[in-house]
């Protein structure tokens, strides 16, 4: 578990706080329930990002004589994932047997989440590109290497298959990503590409 350490590098007042694993968290991000959030390392949370780690499954009260259970994870984000300005990430909720429970949300590696996006999906796999202003409704599942166009509304419970391009309100599968999806980054002028390795982009954010 890596959590922001506000005490480090206080002397240099930068926009981002960098953790030991290389996560960059903006001082202007709104993060709730830090103990329930996992960041994989080299992940960027930009200014104005709302990350709701407090929306997690309530741990069952410990029985007498038992130790208190450790905290459950509400949001886990992989490596080199970029959450752009003003994006909102909140775990989805479901009524199960008359009880409201929050489902832990999983976001993979090298995922780009565009500005003003609203994410409530159950899981997002790696190498996914989410355009700006996209809305990912509760409990949708986004599979590996897919692209969500800007201003898309992915309806609740929809599965976005691997390697597809979705768009529209509600989202429809519009096509497939090219065979070179995520390839060809790492050269000058095109250091990072959609669906590719986002580490250079993470490095460039200061």
């Amino acid at each position, binding site marked *: 578990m890596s959590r922001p350490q506000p005490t480090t590098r206080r002397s240099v007042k930068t926009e981002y706080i960098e953790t030991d694993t290389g996560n960059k968290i903006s001082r202007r991000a709104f993060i709730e329930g830090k103990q329930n959030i996992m960041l994989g390392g080299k992940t960027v949370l930009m200014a104005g990002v709302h990350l709701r780690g407090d929306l997690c499954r309530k741990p069952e009260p410990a029985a007498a004589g038992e130790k208190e259970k450790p905290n459950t994870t509400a949001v886990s984000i992989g490596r080199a994932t*970029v959450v752009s300005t003003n994006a909102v990430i909140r775990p989805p909720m479901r009524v199960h047997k008359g009880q409201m429970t929050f489902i832990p949300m999983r976001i993979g590696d090298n995922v780009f989440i565009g500005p003003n996006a609203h994410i409530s999906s159950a899981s997002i796999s790696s190498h996914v590109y989410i355009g700006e202003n996209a809305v990912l409704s509760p409990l949708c599942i986004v599979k590996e290497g897919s692209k969500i166009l800007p201003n898309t509304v992915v309806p*609740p419970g929809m599965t976005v298959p*691997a390697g597809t391009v979705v768009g529209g309100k509600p989202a429809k599968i519009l096509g497939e990503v090219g065979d070179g999806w995520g390839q060809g980054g790492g050269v000058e002028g095109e250091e990072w590409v959609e669906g590719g390795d986002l580490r250079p982009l993470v490095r460039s954010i200061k």
Partner: protein
Amino acid sequence: MTTAFPSSLYACPCSDLSSAPTPSSKRASIQPNTLELSGDQAFNPHSPRANYALYPLSDLLYCEECDEIRCPRCWTEEILYWYCPNCLFDVPSSTVKGDGNRCSRSCYNCPSCTTPLQITQVSHRDEGLLKPTDAAGGDETYVLQCQYCDWSSLEIDVRFSKPTKITEQLAKQRKARVSGKEDTAPSDKKVTAPDDVFASLVSFYKDQLDESGDSRNPYSNSPYNSPANLARIMSLYGGLSYNALKKTREKPQPMREALGAPEGLFSFGTDRSDTEIISRMQTSGWDATPTAEQQLSAPVNHDIRFADELWPSATQLRTRRAKRCKNCRHIIARQEPKVGNMRYKIRLLAMNYIPRLSIRPLHPTMPLTNPAFNLKPEMPQHELLQPHKAQQYVLTIRNALFETVKISLATPATTPGKVASRVTILCPSFTVGPAGDVWDEALSASAEPNSDGGRKAAMASLTGSSESSDRQPEAGKIWERTRNSTSVIVEVVPGALQQPPSIVRKTDKELADEELEEDDDVLEVPVYVRTEWEMEVKPGESVQAKKDANAMPGEKVGKELGYWVVLAVGRIAG
């Protein structure tokens, strides 16, 4: 066409829009390192068909056998597997052939908005939602519900007794409904599912074929089955002539078409009277009628008249396809045949073979950003290009091969399209060093400390420090060179959007020609790139057909490739 600047799109040489410059000037033996272009030969990025010929480099593949770029128009696809995009199960091809291309599991789409439907439990009003469901209560029902537009199968009065086997339950209810309608409707017109109609039509035509052909022919599967074929073969071996034989036989009965519903005739029209439909439309209005899209969502919805009759449509399957070169039939891209697995077994991307072009301003006014990665909501405004004001750009050609390539560039003196801008490439032919891995670069950089001057220059040009502003671009000189890339300067003088006023009165046609259409103000520079390189024939490698047939292993074989690239520079100010 393009919204982000600067960008580059590649035209596959298979398109007839992208013809190579004239062969005489193309031949290197006559005029080494020069390419000449006349006006008509240039690729016109503003042509309406150009959109279908230009691709981003990541979408193009490369055939190693033919040594050519391959685009969706010059590769063939073959289906690896079918899968349902909702439940992500793959469907065997035999099932697809038998049951059609729809998911037979419990995957249904909302007929009103295409969202995947979800099975929701509905309990009776007396029982509170919070009450835990006890197993004894057998009267709980399930419905299909859309979480997006709130459509539910209650609207067509469909409920399910169990949350599994939805397809069977739905089919049963449909059947009951259709047969129930038949009983009430006294007319002999039958409303049947399109599948049934098709089946009866097929059987009808099969009968017709059997009747018209010689049904007692024992060789029904042999090439002698049809009388015409038999006669032709007989005439080959002498005997009566084909025509004479034809006359002797009586003409086959012409086939008739289906006449009634049992034979598969399907006439538009339902068992309801038109007046009933019209009066209902009058009262309920336009909103109660389905849109064309909703009607076409599934065959069951094809001839419904009102939105409340929409039947949920089973999710259509999708395919994953392998790509083959049309010419030599070699596979150029193939994924692992497993649903959701994005790993490739074979993938010959064009970006790993052909030089990549990128353009950027020599003196950028703002830091260059990747337009796809807008990190902030406000869009950076692109500066408009001023007409008649010369701009200099750095055109970088990056080599992807492990051999040094010779590059010749050619561009029309004025860009094609309604707005003619002048373009000059200051150094049209040069070489680009081989690509290697990062270690090579690091080792060579440490060996000669001067070699990172290129990077320094790049940094300087980005930051706009005085170091680079001292340097003036010169004709015939390379601007910058790194291990596997070479940059040259391109001078662009944007044309004016408005034609200068003339004394001679213009005809209507001329005026109409001057009228600018959408994206005519985008300055796009077509550049023809010809690359030449030498490749060693490795022993044991399949020696390619055609020109390299007599090359021996170890010998060097010259190769060349030519293609058009369209560089979008920016918009011209009006």
